[in-house]
């Protein structure tokens, strides 16, 4: 069974990726990297990562979130995070990455922030 499933939705010009599973060293991190590369290849540069279904992240997964953020920025786009679990919020706080990412609890609020 795969560590993670990633589903794509479109809300206007914002692409929402719903992640369910683990973003950890190996498969989970690789899957996220592939999904972001594919979106950028399709010219989709406003990306919202919904992490509500992500129960587990390690340092490799956090690194992949950072890599995704910088890859999207490099293309002139924006990547934001939606619905962090407490565990992920704690890890982003420890790493001081809460100062880097735009984080939202409500999807509607996140979507209007891209405007």
């Amino acid at each position: 069974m795969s560590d993670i499933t990633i589903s794509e939705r479109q809300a206007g010009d914002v692409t929402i990726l719903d992640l369910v599973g683990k973003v950890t060293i190996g498969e989970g991190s690789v899957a996220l990297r592939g999904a972001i590369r594919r979106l950028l290849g399709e010219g989709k540069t406003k990306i919202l990562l919904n992490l509500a279904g992500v129960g587990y992240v390690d340092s490799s997964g956090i690194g992949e979130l950072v890599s995704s953020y910088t890859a999207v920025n490099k293309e002139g786009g924006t990547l934001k995070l939606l619905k962090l679990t407490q565990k992920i919020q704690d890890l982003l706080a420890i790493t001081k990455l809460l100062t880097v990412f735009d984080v939202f609890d409500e999807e509607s609020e996140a979507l209007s922030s891209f405007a």
Partner: protein
Amino acid sequence: MAGIQELKLPSRIESVDEAAIRADEFAKEQGLGDDFVSAIDLAIRESVANAVKHGNKFAEEKTVDLTLARTDEGFEITVRDYGAGFAIDEIPDPTNPENLLKAHGRGILFMRSFMDVVEWYNHEGGGMVVKMIKRP
């Protein structure tokens, strides 16, 4: 209840999951709670991943030796690799502004954040050992 468990794992990414599963089972057998188990899980994953990647550099003939022990002090983990070692003081602080957007280098920060003791030493038979303790 005291106990000790030792295992040798091959130097591949799958060993990270295997180590974490064994540690979770062992910690639960010791009656430790969810938060405690969760902290151990993360520390094991980060330390075994470091041993596989940076210590043994994925050389499958080199094992990662893991010891789990319930001691009077708490839950003790040692992870040994067979690599050349490293200077812990030379690892950059991932929370420094110039390092925030780097993709790597946060594993040791997590180990230190979730465990009460984290120390490294050279093994007399070669390789590096990280010893971690989580107190109840």
